[in-house]
């Protein structure tokens, strides 16, 4: 009995010491994270607010509004918005088709497996695939010209352009949307639909007043995720267009290779701008995901 009391008395004292020892176990992880993730990023962020001599300045941030840089941001944001919105929309229709469409059951696992592969099939090989499809001598271009009599390139289309890049990005954007949205669609409870039917709702009314409000946060959240996903992509764009298309990741790639802006600190500011944009869209995604989980638990 006395022994137990002694132990109980010693417990609050022992607890904090054990706690501080426990932190030793996660030191390797935090050292790694600081060295290879946090510090290199923080270094760029600090450098964005310094001049060549290391004094504080807002000059670099201000110079981001130079026409070349501003234009790069504009095209990047436009391509990311286009590929995120179209990816989200088509991804939604595909996911809805296999979850709610009453199609044969084997379609769903097949689509999910394919999406797992396609969402990871990005970068240079993807660029090569689209060059072989819609490039000047690509299969689709040739078939359209020889059999349909339609000259794709006469319409001003070019796979090395805004449209081409957006179309290519969709190849990994749509699958990502399907993968994330399918569980959300599964969360739509059958009872909700039945309740709506009993109350005399039409299919449209059910979607308008029940399904869409419930799905909205996950749909919007995933769209933001897709936006960030294409905003940071370098390899696909580089493989497709070389450095001919002026988008931010390509500009930053060129800056990393050889200071094309002739000002290292301006380069840091360019990177800071990317982090701010992807950070905002990811932050909004996390916030929206929290909201959608309330209904879809």
């Amino acid at each position, binding site marked *: 009995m006395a022994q137990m009391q002694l132990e109980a008395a010693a417990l609050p004292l022992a607890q904090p010491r054990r706690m501080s020892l*426990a*932190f030793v*176990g*996660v030191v*390797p*992880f935090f050292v*790694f*994270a600081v060295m*290879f*993730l*946090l510090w*290199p*990023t923080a*270094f*760029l962020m600090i450098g964005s607010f310094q001049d060549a001599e290391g004094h504080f300045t807002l000059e670099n941030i201000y110079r981001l509004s130079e026409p070349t840089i501003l234009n790069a941001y504009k095209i990047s944001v436009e391509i990311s918005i286009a590929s995120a919105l179209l990816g989200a929309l*088509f991804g939604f229709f*595909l996911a*809805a*088709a*296999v979850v709610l*469409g009453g199609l044969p059951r084997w*379609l769903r696992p097949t*689509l999910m*497996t394919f999406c*797992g*592969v396609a969402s*990871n*099939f990005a*970068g*240079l*090989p*993807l*660029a*090569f*695939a*689209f060059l*072989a*499809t819609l490039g000047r001598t690509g*299969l*689709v271009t040739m078939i359209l010209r020889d059999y349909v009599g339609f000259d794709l390139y006469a319409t001003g289309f070019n796979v090395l352009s805004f449209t081409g890049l957006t179309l290519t990005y969709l*190849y990994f954007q*749509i699958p990502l949307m399907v993968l994330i949205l399918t569980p959300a669609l599964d969360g739509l409870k059958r009872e909700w*639909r039945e309740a709506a039917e009993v109350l005399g709702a039409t*299919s449209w009314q*059910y979607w308008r007043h029940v399904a869409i409000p419930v799905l909205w946060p996950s749909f919007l959240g995933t769209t933001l995720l897709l936006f*960030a996903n294409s*905003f940071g*992509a*370098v*390899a696909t764009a*580089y*493989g497709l267009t070389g450095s001919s298309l002026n988008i931010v*990741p390509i500009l930053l*790639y060129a*800056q*990393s290779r050889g200071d094309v802006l002739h000002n290292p600190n301006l380069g840091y500011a360019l*990177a800071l701008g990317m982090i701010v944009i*992807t*950070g905002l869209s*990811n932050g909004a995604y996390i916030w929206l995901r929290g909201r959608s989980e309330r209904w879809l638990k």
Partner: protein
Amino acid sequence: MKSSRLGPWLAIAIGTAYFLIPLLATFEFSLRMRRGEYSFEAYRVVLADPRFQASFGYSTLIAIATIVLGVLLIVPTAYWIELKLRKIRPLVEFITLLPLVIPAIVIVFGYLHTYNSSSWIPLIATPRGTDLLLTFGYMTLALPYMYRAVDTGLRSIDVRTLTEAAESLGAGWGTILFKVIFPNVRVAVLSGAFLTFAIVIGEFTLASLLDRPAFGPYLQLVGANRAYEPSALAIVAFIVTWACMGLIQIFGRDRRATMAGR
């Protein structure tokens, strides 16, 4: 409220066309190397290219190093947090998600300035040091996927009970980690490993900016200079990605089968 199946079928048809046509076109293009006939000439040329073999081998090696070091870092960390430090889990989860927020190009741009030859830790000064930095960079890129996979695996087993049982039988920390925890999260670790392999094998941005002879920069070189070989390489890369995802599914199914058998 009986809905027609026309819409769903239409969505599937358009989706199938969009996803299959580029693959078919790429395959067809890769067979066109010999004039007037289909042949596997482009594949023969590519696979026989010593630079292909060297760069693919190099990337495979880096991928394996990434996986081994990543598992050794992440499994003990996730285990320790689950066992003793649940309070800091949100912070660790936040850090592991950051590589999805910070684009790879930004991370490597940071490396070029923090690990160059005039810095405290001049990793970029030597080729071996750069290999190491590339491996650490890939570990960073794979962190969200690896941590998520391992964490899910750990949550599905009772870490506390297993640890206490092992401790009461006199096991030390090394034994607990390698003989009790690792075997129990093997499936999760494997799926993280294959995903990491799929990401690392053709990665371009880091390898190119750190100037290492990896598969990604080789792809870029061939893409810029050749006509038919890039298509053959795209097909090869697609098969590699497909194999990685297939292996994840096979191991995942294995686990479900044994779970049901219990």
